[in-house]
Every structure is written in C-alpha cells, then in structure tokens.
C-alpha cells in the first residue's frame, strides 16, 4: 500500500477484498488485478494486515464484572445516596415516563426521516431526564443562575427565558446530547408537568414556524428561531403546550 502509486480502482479492489462485490463485479476485479500491480500489492497488504490484526488478540470483550452488573440490573443508574431534597425531575419516574413510552402508540406526522429520528431522540432525552440520578448536571432557580451556568459548557449561548409570571416557571438546565452534538436542555414546569426545551444552533439559520408531533404519549413542538433549533417535549396536552410555545417565542 504505497502512498504514492495509486490506481483509480483501488477502492473497488478493497471492496472486493472485503467481500462487498457481487460475483460479476468480483470476477471483473480479479481480471483487473491480474494486470494491475498496484491492486495486487494492495490486496496482499490488506490480507497481511488482516492476519496481523486478527492474530493480535485485539478484540476486547466485556469484563465479566460489567456483564454481571448490567445483567443483574440493566437500568443500574446510580442513585445518589440520601439526598435531602431531590428535584422532581430527578425523582424515580414510576409509571409516569416509561409507562407512556412503552404504550408506544407511534404517530407519524409529516416529518422528514431526519426529523423522525430527532423526534425519537427528543422523547428519549425527555424520558431519560426523568430517570433518577441520571442527569449529568442540573441546576435550578431563575434565569440569572441558569444562563451563566451554561457558559463554558457549550460552544453557544442558549436562549434562557423564564415564564414564571405566565405560569411556566423555569426550574433548571442541564447539558444533553442530541443528534450527535451537545445541546442545552431547559426544564420548565406547568402544574406538575415537566417540559423539556432543547436548543442548539441551527446550521441553516432560516427561521421555521412551529410543527407539532406526537410520539409515545408525548407532545413535541419543533421550530427554528433566531438561528436556534428548538425542540420542546412534554406530556402536557397539546393546547397547553401550544400556549407555552407561543409565550416562549414572544418572550425576550
């Protein structure tokens, strides 16, 4: 596999070596290889490397202790020992989150496949946030505590708005991970119902109006505002969640 000499069919030669070609293509590549020293050498080198890799004992199996622990209790989220006061979104979810999720009456709205997958991730993020002791970081109180808390934890400043006087108090924030990136998660509350709002910078910067979706008993709303992708998820009913979205969008 010399770095200098190359053949335009080298990736096909590799695909042949990896058994990715059908019989006709493979036969054609074999004929090509017979007359191409570069592909011949690459084939031999890949073969040698495969033997080296597979004979080097590099496959790392799960340690028995880890397997035992996960088999005994897959959801072994370490619950912090005796916390004096546990915020509601850290309390055991009981039947609240998981029950609704397991009912799983999946509703497909007109969303792109990418958005479909985001719907799943947002719901999972919400349900995850309801698990005991699982959040990476949580803080509470008002926006003046929440906003600076994100400084240095994210590569953007999330829009932190408090709607306490409108009946949707901001309870806290944390870091979450959605769609392959770190995002800000803001936690609001309305009549004991938690609302998770996820925000991260939009690649396109085009504002988009709110779109509703429903999944596993949760209502979701997605929009783009001021260059931020926003996803909101809650078990609140659709009209109340819509009111929250309207107020949040209007607030500064």
């Amino acid at each position, binding site marked *: *596999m010399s*770095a200098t000499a190359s053949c335009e069919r*080298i*990736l096909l030669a*590799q*695909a042949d070596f*990896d058994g*990715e070609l059908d019989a006709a293509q493979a036969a054609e590549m074999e004929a090509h290889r017979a007359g191409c020293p570069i592909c011949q050498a690459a084939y031999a*080198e*890949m073969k040698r*490397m*495969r033997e*080296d*890799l*597979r*004979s*080097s*004992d*590099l*496959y*790392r*199996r*799960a*340690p028995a202790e*880890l*397997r035992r*622990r*996960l*088999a005994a209790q*897959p*959801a*072994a*989220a370490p619950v912090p020992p005796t916390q004096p006061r546990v915020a509601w979104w850290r309390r055991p*979810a*009981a*039947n609240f989150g*998981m*029950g609704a*999720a*397991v009912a*799983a009456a*999946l509703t497909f709205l007109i969303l792109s496949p990418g958005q479909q997958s985001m719907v*799943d991730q947002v*719901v*999972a993020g919400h*349900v*995850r946030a309801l*698990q005991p002791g*699982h959040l*990476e970081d949580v803080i509470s109180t008002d926006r003046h505590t929440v906003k600076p808390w994100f400084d240095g934890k994210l590569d953007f400043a999330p829009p932190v708005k408090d709607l306490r006087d409108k009946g949707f108090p901001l309870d806290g924030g944390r*870091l979450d*991970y959605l769609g*392959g990136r*770190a995002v800000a998660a803001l936690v609001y509350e309305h009549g004991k119902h938690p609302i998770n709002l996820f925000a991260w910078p939009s690649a396109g910067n085009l504002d988009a109006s709110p779109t509703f979706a429903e*999944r*596993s008993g949760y209502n979701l709303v997605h929009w783009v505002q001021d260059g931020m992708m926003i996803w909101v998820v809650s078990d609140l009913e659709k009209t109340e969640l819509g009111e929250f979205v309207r107020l949040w969008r209007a607030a500064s």
Partner: protein
Amino acid sequence: MALPADQDSFKAAVLPHLDAAFNLARWLMRNTQDAEDVVQEAVLRALTYFPGFRGENPRGWLLQIVRNAAYASMKLNRGAMMVSVGDDTSLPEPADPGDDPEATLMKEQDRAQMGRLLATLPVELRETLVLRELEEMSYKAIAEITAAPIGTVMSRLWRARRLLAAAAKAEENRR
C-alpha cells in the same frame, strides 16, 4: 425500572451484544475504565430508546448508541480530544518500543505493537477499521453505525489501512 417483563426482552436483545459494545467503546475511548462507563451509559440510553426499537439488527442498534455515548464522553472530557481528519492526514507518531516492558518478547511485542498503532489512528478511521476487521461488519452496517455514507466508509477504511501499514513499516525500520 418498573417494567420487569420488558426488561427480559430488553436483556435478550442487548446482552448478547455486550462484547461488541465493549470492544467498540474500548477502541474509541482507549482505556478500560472509560469504556465501561460508556457501555453502562449506552445500556441506560438503550433502555429508554427500547420502546421505539423494532427488533431489527439489535447489534447495530446498540453499537450506534455506544458510539454516540462515546463521542459525548470524549466531547465532555476535553482530555480525550477527537482528532479530526483532513485530506492531508499526517502519519501517526509510532510509539517508542522502548516504553514497552515486554519489549524483550518478540511475539508479545508484535501483538502489542498492532494494538498501539491501531490506537494512534484518528478516531473516524479507527472506528471504521475496528468495525470492519475486528467486528467483521459489512460496509452497510458500518455506514449505519457511524452515520456516514458508504463511500465515506470505503475511503476511511482505505486511509485507515494505508496509515496503519505505513506506521507499522516505520516502526519496523526503527528497530
């Protein structure tokens, strides 16, 4: 968790693939403790995703979650920086064989060398090569797990192999 019945089907789907999950996590994180944390986190996430899982290809499904958890962990722990790959990928610095206490045993050294060199590959190349050569997965399966087009998988695999071969050769010449 309040769902014992569902936990059984969850375990049946996930536990058979724990070795694959750990192997990927171990080669992404490059140490055992972080890999254990990542796998534990991934299994927890998998449990919350499980209601939406349709039962196809549980191994690929779990490895996707493991990869996401590993990247999240790498991102949060700035110590384990991800190496981004440009077109002008420079060769990884071969490790000094003198560091290896078992350097006197030739065979052991060869085996350890392969692992050391593999660990120096940029993460995108490393994960692709690990899934192909150690997990023996198809291009399509690798593309799904790494969220990359098949063409990207093919070129990453080729660059991974070229880099590893060059690094092995450089180390050989050094002796």
